[in-house]
């Protein structure tokens, strides 16, 4: 077997654009699912009673259905229902957000619930409103405790963007697949893609762990 890695260098631009799309999609869906996750978790914890069963059903449903199914449904079926067609990138962003926000919400809930109820009561006894107590006392402690879980969620997000290749988002997985098919050099192309994904993912989990070790004391009470 001979390997010829010039296929990578001669298509550097093509693969590079895929890497950029992967990064942009990862960061964008990371931010949107984090924001949506906070809203969902706060609704579940402090929202009106009638809303809670709906929120729980949403979270558990997303934990039960594959992300591939969510993405394919968002891209192909949702436009039929709404009459609006979306470019693949935005369908992927929407699908990933809807899916990952449920996981983010569970992380937020676990973090908030890990703060002892006495903290909340003490804050309210000092005259704070419920919203103030959550914002000033509970959240700062909970946020630090959520960090490691958010780190692994970010790595899950990057991995899930690869599934967006199925709905023709031209990210790294899709570009690699196309190039592998055209060049008949799948070993070289996929090995390169593996290397790039590993280099993107490994520092995320390690970096978050290291950062957490430095700030963990802030979350203790």
């Amino acid at each position: 077997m001979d390997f010829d890695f010039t296929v990578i260098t001669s298509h550097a631009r093509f693969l590079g654009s895929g890497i950029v799309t992967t990064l942009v999609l990862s960061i964008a869906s990371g931010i949107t699912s984090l924001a949506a996750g906070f809203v969902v978790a706060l609704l579940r914890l402090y929202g009106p009673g009638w809303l809670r069963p709906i929120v729980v059903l949403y979270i558990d449903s997303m934990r039960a259905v594959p992300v591939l199914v969510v993405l394919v449904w968002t891209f192909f079926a949702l436009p039929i229902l709404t009459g609006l067609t979306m470019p693949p990138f935005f369908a992927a962003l929407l699908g990933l957000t809807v899916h990952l926000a449920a996981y983010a919400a569970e992380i937020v809930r676990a973090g908030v619930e890990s703060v002892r109820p006495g903290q909340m009561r003490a804050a309210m006894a000092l005259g704070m409103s419920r919203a103030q107590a959550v914002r000033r006392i509970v959240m700062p402690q909970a946020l630090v405790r959520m960090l490691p879980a958010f780190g692994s969620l970010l790595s899950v997000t990057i991995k899930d963007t690869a599934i967006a290749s199925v709905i023709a988002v031209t990210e790294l997985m899709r570009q690699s697949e196309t190039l592998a098919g055209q060049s008949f050099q799948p070993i070289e192309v996929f090995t390169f893609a593996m290397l790039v994904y590993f280099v993107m993912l490994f520092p995320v989990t390690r970096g978050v762990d290291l950062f957490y070790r430095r700030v963990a004391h802030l979350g203790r009470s």
Partner: protein
Amino acid sequence: MSFDWSVVWQHRDALAAATMTTILLTIATMAIAVPCGIVVAVVRLYAWKPVAALATAYVELFRNLPLILVVYWAFYVLPILTDTGLSPLATGLAALALNVTAYNAETFRAGINSIRRGQLDAAMALGMSRVQALRRVVLPQALRRILPVLASTWVSLFKDTSLVSVIAVTELAYVAMQIRAQTFRVLEMLTAMAVIYWLLGYPQAKLVDWMQRRFAVAE
């Protein structure tokens, strides 16, 4: 807009067979990945340093790669490396097993590490060999602790089997999308696919929650 849901009922046999494949694929992968995961974890913890490092490298590599890439890689590269033509099903199974074994190995390692060192020492002081002590004393305790984690890996795996649809394994996602392409009933078929996954996955997710409460380690 007009929807024709009868298309789902007309293809019930194909969908049922595909659902069966999804379930069997999940079971087969776990049946491979649990014993292999234990072996990798034990090698990582107790084997000769260079071999342990190799096991660590394997675990870290596969935990940091998107599964869909591993599936494509297995599909294109395994036949070239092994010089044999594998069926899509066998290729998909191999890719899933490689991935889940890495996750299970990490789970077992954490489980074994959570059992205090004194347990192993005590067992060996009673005259057991290291292997005996691991098998009879450490592993049974570790297993109970990591059962909820294994269950949650199981649910992830059940969902991840949908990814082998990209190499034409005739599981639920692939078959549903095939019928969609043949009948042009896009919304109906994709919704049916989502509902079948939901019906199977929802009770599993709930079961995991229950196990997490039931087997929680009291600190």
